[in-house]
């Protein structure tokens, strides 16, 4: 009797394991056919393979170059298969890529581009000016990302003159700005594939990854959460220095860094780990940390609709109340510096080095607040407005933990000058509605991407895709001048003017200038060419990087 029961129990347990094993086997059977087609051969094993890591919430469920949750790290991943008319140089200057040259019309409303004549799509079809026209109009008509909105607002049309020549016509004289920001970031896609696709965000066929970039997409292994790429021997700028890339997805920065330290991956795409993680990476054998300037920065943004946030002197008092060095030390473990009043990081070409750094001066802050009549009339430690109400504000910290730490530190600092600042966070969608749609906030902290967009997107209501509230005509005029600049010199001059305005009026305050921190396995590959703020896996890196030990 007991033996029977024991036997029954064993049978049950064995059955459970067989079920789970068979599910695993079924998964293997399902994809063994596709695995045979790629990788695994002797020659592949000898190839130079880069193992890269990417940390983000998830790989997109539909893998095509036009499907990204938003503008994030996947942008850099798709940059291995796709290129734009230009690529960013190390200082964010647009350098020729698919377009070998371009000419800007004297009125700044059109750009004539000349394509290279030896570019082909990964399926062998030649790249033509028709593809460029199709791409720009397709991004515009399908409202793809921020670029789609910009194109919708300012792209008039693209005319094709011959196979390799075309002209982009704009509704405003923003040609140079267009070249600087959209030529590198709008990836050209093959017309013969995408013209039959009505819903680019849902397209999941393999040809959705066909580009003309230095690598060819092979497959994505969902079980391994890894995307595979192989070098494009026909790439028009020459063959890349490595043969294959295995791009593995991780959900957290911690697991990505552990994988790097352990040697499971060689490099991390795009996102730089925070400075506070650097000590855990130091003294790791075979690991090198590339530290450079970061053009991206956190900004404190004010709502001009609210009194006294719309008063320059009040904003100045707040700027004196911030201990910038403490923020650098606590948030970035010292990997950063006190920012300038002109916002733009000193590493940006157009940044004016003459603009003074922001100053932490509690005495000055208190003097200004006193002079404005904001006194602590009820002696509760918080200053009062002339009508008796407390000087109390809310600062929105987005859902990232770093934002909340910054908000808490600001709250602590402002308390010292008698201002009550309450950090506030909520569901991302709630915050987005408050900031983007209702513009109902006092202050918010936003971490801006690299590049000079911080000057425009943060604080004014001039061009689309902004959340600002400042409607000062002088500011709009200055910003418009930067957009209308016709060459690098004019751009620099106009950006200088805009930085002067920032310094004088403080519509937003840079909280610190951080460093780019890029750890990589120097025992596997060397000679990376970083694009500061966007990581080591730049376009230039694919031709420069060298495997260690041959």
């Amino acid at each position, binding site marked *: 009797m007991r033996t029977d029961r024991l036997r029954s129990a064993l049978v049950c347990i064995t059955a459970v394991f067989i079920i789970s094993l068979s599910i695993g086997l079924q*998964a293997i059977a399902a994809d063994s056919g596709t695995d045979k087609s790629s990788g695994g051969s002797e020659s592949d094993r000898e190839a130079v393979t880069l193992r890269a890591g990417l940390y983000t919430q998830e790989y997109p*469920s539909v893998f095509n170059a036009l499907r990204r949750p938003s503008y994030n790290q996947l942008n850099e991943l798709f940059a291995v298969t796709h290129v734009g008319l230009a690529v960013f140089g190390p200082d964010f200057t647009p350098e020729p890529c698919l377009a070998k040259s371009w000419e800007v019309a004297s009125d700044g409303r059109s750009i004539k581009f000349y394509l290279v004549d030896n570019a082909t799509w990964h399926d062998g079809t030649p790249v033509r000016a028709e593809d460029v026209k199709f791409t720009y109009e397709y991004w515009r008509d399908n*409202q793809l990302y921020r670029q789609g909105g910009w194109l919708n607002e300012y792209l008039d049309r693209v005319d094709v003159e011959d196979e390799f020549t075309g002209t982009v016509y704009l509704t405003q004289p923003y040609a140079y700005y267009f070249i600087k920001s959209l030529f590198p970031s709008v990836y050209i896609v093959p017309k013969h594939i995408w013209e039959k696709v009505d819903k680019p965000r849902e397209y999941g066929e393999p040809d959705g990854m066909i580009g003309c970039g230095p690598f060819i997409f092979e497959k994505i292994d969902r079980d391994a*959460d890894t995307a595979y790429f192989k070098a494009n021997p026909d790439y028009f700028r020459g063959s890349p220095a490595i043969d294959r890339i295995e791009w593995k997805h991780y959900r957290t920065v911690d697991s990505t860094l552990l994988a790097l330290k*352990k040697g499971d991956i060689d490099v991390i795409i795009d996102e730089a780990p925070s400075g506070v993680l650097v000590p855990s990476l130091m003294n790791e054998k075979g690991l090198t940390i590339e530290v450079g300037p970061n053009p991206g920065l956190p900004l404190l943004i004010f709502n001009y609709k609210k009194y006294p946030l719309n008063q320059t002197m009040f904003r100045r008092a707040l700027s004196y109340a911030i201990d910038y060095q403490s923020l650098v030390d606590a948030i970035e473990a010292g990997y950063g510096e006190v920012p300038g009043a002109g916002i733009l990081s000193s590493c940006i070409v157009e940044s004016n080095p003459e603009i003074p750094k922001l100053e932490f001066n509690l005495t000055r802050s208190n003097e200004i607040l006193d002079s404005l009549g904001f006194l602590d009339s009820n002696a509760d430690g918080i200053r009062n407005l002339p009508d008796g109400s407390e000087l109390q504000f809310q600062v929105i910290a987005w859902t990232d933990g770093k934002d909340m730490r910054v908000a808490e530190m600001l709250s602590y600092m402002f308390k010292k000058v008698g201002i009550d600042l309450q950090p506030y966070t909520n569901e991302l969608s709630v915050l987005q509605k408050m900031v983007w749609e209702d513009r109902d906030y006092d202050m918010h902290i936003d971490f801006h991407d690299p590049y000079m967009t911080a000057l425009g997107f943060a604080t004014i209501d001039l061009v689309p895709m902004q959340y600002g509230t400042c409607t000062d005509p002088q500011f709009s005029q200055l910003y418009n001048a930067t957009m209308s600049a016709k060459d690098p010199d004019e751009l620099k001059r106009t950006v200088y003017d805009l930085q002067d305005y920032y310094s004088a009026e403080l519509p937003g305050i840079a909280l610190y200038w951080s460093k780019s921190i890029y750890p990589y396995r120097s025992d596997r590959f060397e000679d990376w060419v970083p694009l500061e703020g966007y990581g080591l896996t730049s376009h230039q890196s694919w031709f420069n990087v060298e495997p260690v030990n041959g």
Partner: protein
Amino acid sequence: MTARTSYLARQILRYSITLFIIITLVFLIPRMMPGDPFISLLGEDVYYRSPELVSALKAEYGLDRPLPEQYISYLYGLLKGDLGYSIHCSQPVWDVITYKMKWTVVLLLPSAVLAAILGIVLGSISGWQRGQRTDTSITTLFLFIYSMPHYWLAMFFVLIFAFYLGVFPLSGITGGGLVGWRKLQDILWHMALPVTVLTLFGATYNYFIMRGSVVQASRESYVLTARAKGLSERDVLFRHVLRNAMLPLVTVIALDFGFMVSGALLVEIVFSWGGMGTLVYDAVLARDYPLLHGSFLVIAAFVLVSNFLAEVIYAVIDPRIKGR
């Protein structure tokens, strides 16, 4: 109709009503959350800039219709076996769930079984030897494990066994690039740490219930009778005490199976294991209503079926229910 058939019929009716209420709730609750599924699809730039595009998408997915109409359409779809189309994944919900569920079952089925065995065996021994050194040692150890957050123990295991000792992989389901038996070996190797963590946590829970149950049962008079009959201690435990002490654990183990599809979220994240836990997490962030409906419904169905099976097993093994 026999008493047992009548009992089962009443249970089926009760479960059907419960399922209907769950179906209604999983339809309503995601819609009560702030946010919009199209923010994640379009990105916030496009979403706030192009209200006409958002309206067109809402119309396409039927989200512009009145709520009762959407509800009826949803019920009609369920009757046809159609769970809908995931906005975030751009795939049929059923396809997304079956893929993720496969990996959750692979991970959690062995964990639940091992946790049950470990909990029953050690709980019985401890309960039977209450206050002795074995009991004290095991209880202390299990209390220590039980008081830790799942994810913390998972991270600890990753750090020790995967990073420092290097005997297991850091994360993932498989390393990729393998086929056939080598892939199976690789999956088993990747499973080792998450299964161990989940087993330990499941076992601690089962252990304390089993231990308490054995302690309680050992005071019953039938135990005294068994001893008086001259049975060995081992026979008293395994032939008399264990059978009665198992009753509360049947429910717990059944519920373990029910909750296993949703209960390993943090462990899945630590080990980058793409199962149901991470699917639900991503679906909540994306406000993907169809995917949330489907996922919650499948999870609820698991819980209900497990409960129902527990009741059936009860009816079979418990003479008091047999007689009702």
